[in-house]
């Protein structure tokens, strides 16, 4: 199927267009515009597949990863979650929500000097396990917590 160049540019995914632009010398490597986004990892639908897409071949459960979150979320649209890792040389912290349409919610890079600690809010489609996956010193670790999502009342 032949496409005009303009059609190609419009139809391409963000990454495709950027690749084209980068190849054409329009975007310098390292520029904020050309930021990476691990599309594959955000489309996996299980803990195992997501771990693989993130670059891990296996993960060890660790009591050194603490998940702070409510046992019950009054509304699945906004669930507060805090992850703190006591594992030395923590490099990344990822949030995986088992029963969501796509498992991976976020992946945080923790540079040296930044606490391996992050709080954010996620959407949960239904009651599910949430996994905190930590990459430390090239190895993967995880902890899990079940959060129940309730049906609301009238909403006040």
């Amino acid at each position, binding site marked *: 199927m032949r496409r005009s160049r303009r059609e190609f540019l419009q139809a391409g995914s*963000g990454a495709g267009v950027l690749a084209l632009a980068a190849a054409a010398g329009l975007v310098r490597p390292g520029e*904020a*515009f050309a*930021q*990476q*986004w*691990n599309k594959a*990892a*955000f489309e996996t639908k299980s803990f195992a597949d997501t771990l693989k897409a993130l670059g891990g071949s296996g993960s060890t459960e660790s009591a050194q990863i603490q998940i702070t979150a409510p046992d019950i979320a009054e509304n699945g*649209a*906004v*669930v507060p979650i*805090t992850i703190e890792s006591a594992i030395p040389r923590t490099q990344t912290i990822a949030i995986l*929500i088992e029963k*969501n*349409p*796509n498992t*991976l*919610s*976020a*992946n*945080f*890079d*923790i*540079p040296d*000097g*930044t*606490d391996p*600690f*992050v*709080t*954010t*809010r*996620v*959407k*949960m489609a239904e009651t599910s396990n949430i996994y905190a996956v930590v990459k430390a010193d090239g190895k993967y670790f995880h902890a899990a917590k079940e959060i129940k999502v309730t049906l609301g009342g009238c909403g006040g």
Partner: protein
Amino acid sequence: MADPMRIRANMAGDKVEVRVLMSHEMETGQRKDASGAIVPAHFIQNVTVTHAGKTVLSAQWGTSISKNPFVHFRFKGGKPGEKVTISWVDNKGERRTDEVVIGGG
């Protein structure tokens, strides 16, 4: 242009504690509008926080980060009066950068 972020950065001991609220729909791409048509995904994909030219936090996000995202984290090396800059880029290429001055403890 998206609404400004609300950022608070204060000293907590020898660390800078940052709390940021971003204004963004974080549309999943799974919702249908009143006419039954799918509302396209529109969500922040990349977040970068810098201080004194160094990245102190970066993140890749998917559609399951809540609408009007909130992030709280801490880093070492900042002092009151210095700036922390936060940027985000979404899947449509829209972006926003805001900065805050680090307050006292």
